[in-house]
């Protein structure tokens, strides 16, 4: 087998050295009746070309050749080949968590740079080395708020990503956290009246997403003022990081839970992505996850170490702030390289292109009879429209034109019948948009499908 570096004579030599007659001797501690006598029924073995062939065949069964108007937490952005060249360097790719600082300075300094970039983007004072994704980062932010406030109710905007809400509920169920949903109002943002009646001195946190699931930007400062006056924390989730190139960062938030997929990570059917928690310095000891910090050696040279580990599971065990161990380090590195490549101007330009394309497609869509903008509030690269008929039916028509249409919202929000969430990025060309708009116009002009 090409991955195994031993000849059979070397194996024999090593067996003789350990005093074993056969390899089976080395497994004698496993009770005989549990030792497999037959080979496992597994596909393979495949040579390298065959492995490639298998995955190329699977790739053909997916969406190659389609344009897409899906976002909803996963965004298709430009990615430089430089990012992949760097993260595929063996020294980054095949190294472990940097516990041995002297021979892990590359990873440690990169994490420190990542933490800095995340602070700059979110307007927060510190950020951790990564969480599994935006959904678990949001959940951990709520649990962190519970620890800080010692309160147990969490009010969650219904305009938070439905899958994020699901994850939060899964975790909350057994940790004593009570999760209540706050609906959205006519502008698609958190309904302040309902918030007013729900909030109280027993609320640990109010969790919103901005831009929210419908693409609408929440009004942070006013919300923060109300939340803070009850002694609760404001948690802001950000699923579309590129928005931060143009949209005012949630500086008023106490904890920001960011999904960094937009920073150089492929959609990859949903992962691996990179979550981040950013917060105030005063909350650092309640932070989950790894942190890299600056340190000096005995000769005064600057270096970096994993620090404040007394929060973590390998030290604190059942008293840890979280059970997270393995995180998404290589994805965080990709985001670091990607954002460094873009730089200040590149990120701003990318954000401006997203904004411009979204404005353009909205303007074109509302020219179609019966298509209306659902929420009249500022948005970034995603927005909600209502169609005069079922989104699924329209999308079936669009698929014939090799277009993956916008996300139908009614299965996630029964109250939003015929609502579609449209997303465009800098990768969506004008030609894609025009084809989509004319395809949609045509689909709506067709006779209705029989029910």
């Amino acid at each position, binding site marked *: 087998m090409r991955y195994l570096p031993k000849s059979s004579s070397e194996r024999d030599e090593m067996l003789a050295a350990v005093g074993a007659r056969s390899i089976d001797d080395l497994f004698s501690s496993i009770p005989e009746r549990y030792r497999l006598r037959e080979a496992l029924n597994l596909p393979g073995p495949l040579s390298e070309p065959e492995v490639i062939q298998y995955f190329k065949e699977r790739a053909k069964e997916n969406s190659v050749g389609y344009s897409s108007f899906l976002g909803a937490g996963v965004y298709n952005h430009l990615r430089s080949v430089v990012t992949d060249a760097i993260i595929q360097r063996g020294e980054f790719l095949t190294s472990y968590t940097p516990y041995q600082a002297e021979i892990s300075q590359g990873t440690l300094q990169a994490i420190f740079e990542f933490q800095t970039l995340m602070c700059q983007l979110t307007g927060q004072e510190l950020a951790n080395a990564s969480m599994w994704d935006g959904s678990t980062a949001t959940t951990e932010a709520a649990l962190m708020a519970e620890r800080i406030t010692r309160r147990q109710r969490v009010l969650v905007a219904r305009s938070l990503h439905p899958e994020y809400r699901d994850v939060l509920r899964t975790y909350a169920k057994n940790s004593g956290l009570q999760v209540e949903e706050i609906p959205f109002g006519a502008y698609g943002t958190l309904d302040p009246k309902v918030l007013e009646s729900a909030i109280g001195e027993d609320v640990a946190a109010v969790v919103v997403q901005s831009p929210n699931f419908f693409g609408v*930007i929440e009004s942070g400062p006013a919300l923060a003022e109300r939340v803070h006056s009850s002694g609760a924390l404001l948690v802001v989730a950000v699923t579309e990081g590129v928005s931060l190139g143009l949209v005012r960062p949630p500086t008023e938030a106490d904890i920001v839970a960011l999904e960094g997929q937009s920073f150089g990570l492929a959609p990859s059917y949903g992962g691996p992505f990179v979550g981040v928690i950013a917060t105030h310095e005063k909350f650092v000891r309640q932070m989950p996850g790894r942190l890299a910090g600056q340190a000096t050696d005995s000769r005064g040279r600057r270096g970096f170490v994993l620090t404040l580990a007394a929060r973590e599971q390998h030290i604190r065990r059942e008293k840890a702030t979280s059970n997270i161990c393995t995180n998404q380090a290589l994805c965080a590195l990709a985001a670091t390289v990607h954002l460094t490549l873009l730089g200040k101007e590149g990120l701003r330009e990318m954000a401006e292109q997203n904004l*411009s394309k979204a404005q353009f497609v909205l303007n074109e869509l509302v020219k179609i009879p019966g298509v209306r903008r659902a929420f009249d509030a500022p948005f970034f690269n995603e927005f909600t429209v209502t169609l005069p008929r079922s989104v699924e039916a329209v999308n079936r028509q669009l698929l014939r034109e090799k277009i993956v249409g916008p996300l139908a919202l009614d299965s996630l929000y029964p109250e939003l019948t015929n609502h579609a969430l449209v997303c465009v990025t800098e990768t969506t060309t004008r030609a894609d948009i025009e084809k989509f708009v004319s395809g949609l116009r045509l689909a709506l002009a067709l006779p209705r499908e029989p029910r």
Partner: protein
Amino acid sequence: MSDKITKASRHVSQNEGLIFEKSSPGKRAFELPPLDVPAADPAKTLGANHRSEGVGGFPEVSEIEVLRHFTRLSTWNYAIDLGMYPLGSCTMKYNPRVNEFVVRLDGIATEHPLQPQVLSQGCLKIMQLLEQSLLEITGMDALTLQPAAGAQGELTGLLLIRAYLEEQGNARKKVLIPDSAHGTNPATAVIAGYQVENIKSDSHGQVDVEKLGELVTEDVAALMITNPSTLGIFEQSISDIAAILHAKGALLYMDGANMNALAGVARPGDFGVDVMHLNLHKTFSTPHGGGGPGAGPVAMKKILEPFRPIPVLVEMGSGELALEQDRPRSIGRVKAFSGNFGVLVRALAYILAYGPGIRQATEDAVLNANYIRKHLEGAFALPYSRPSMHEVVFSDAVQKEQGVNTMDIAKRLIDYGFHPYTTAFPLIVPGALMIEPTESESKEECDLFIEAMRAIAEEVASNPELVKSAPHTTRIGRLDEVAAARKPVLRWKQGSGV
């Protein structure tokens, strides 16, 4: 540096500051294609939400500077690609490059998790084949690929147990965890709403079966066991342990961190385990990447299947695959979308390359650990003498007499060109040296490691200060971690001189 060090020589290492320190306004490393629609005015469309000043402090550098910056940083890391990385319990094995190639294919990397299922059959087939393969390897009945890492797999497993017990009428209060367990086990049990009861290992480092019999009451939901244990020793009484739990209606959870000792040789499903997680970034070779991403699929017996997290992969009557969202008995979702799919792709590529030959990898891993054990016994104390499987745990008891501890030896090993073993774990071995070579090491590399370890043992006797002040060849010395934690500096700031 000593002439007798065979593996390593000194090498120039370039200095490099923080990327923020290289920034100069107006430089950039990436250009976008021109905008092909009318430009929107951000101030007008976003109003008060507009960030007019851009991201303050963001770096402005050119492409070659970015490339050199990160390349220089990379050279400060040790890596499997450079040599043996014998971290016990971490299974640092070769990460095949073809896996990195296939995960980046158009049609794999490009797929959106919410796209229509009719356009996702390729992704779903990959997940199905991986599920089937992992079930065959573990001998279990059902599986979820959703958990993002081992710790999330543990949580998923305990939530399955809780849901099952709740349906029986009593979720119970406690989870038992041996004192040799990974720290994630107790941390996870708390999130699942259970009290942790630590149980002491017996004099052989095994679960004390008699004691267990007393501890398992109807308050106990589960025992979380690692098998082989973190000592690298197979639990002799595993089926008795399972029987004790089952007799009281409790379940057996297995931490699969050490599955590299079993794949193709024995199956947890056959020896009484009810639910377990796998670490694809350990046993199934997906790269650690400096700390992640990983994936922690959970395999379970039939009784737990109805509670699997949504969505669940199902095969329709037509043969088409689908992700089912509507599962009323499910524990819910543990992560957005369908798990760390890119990691799943790599793991399947690894399994396909081996096929049933995965057994050979397990055998080589166990052979390497025993070969190293044989040659280091005598030089280092072996606190538990039961047969080793894929890893061996020594202690620094002999070296302690010279004032040298496991961390010192680990740091000295760096000078010899190796990454250290795992230090000070498991907790039941004071001053542990936990060594896991994996199957990826040749006899030559094992011999070099043995030579290095024996040379260090001699140095401890002849010149302990040399070992205590190691490493001597790295670009920086031991960093003051206490000072770093006392006054944490966790980010660069403009003009801070960090």
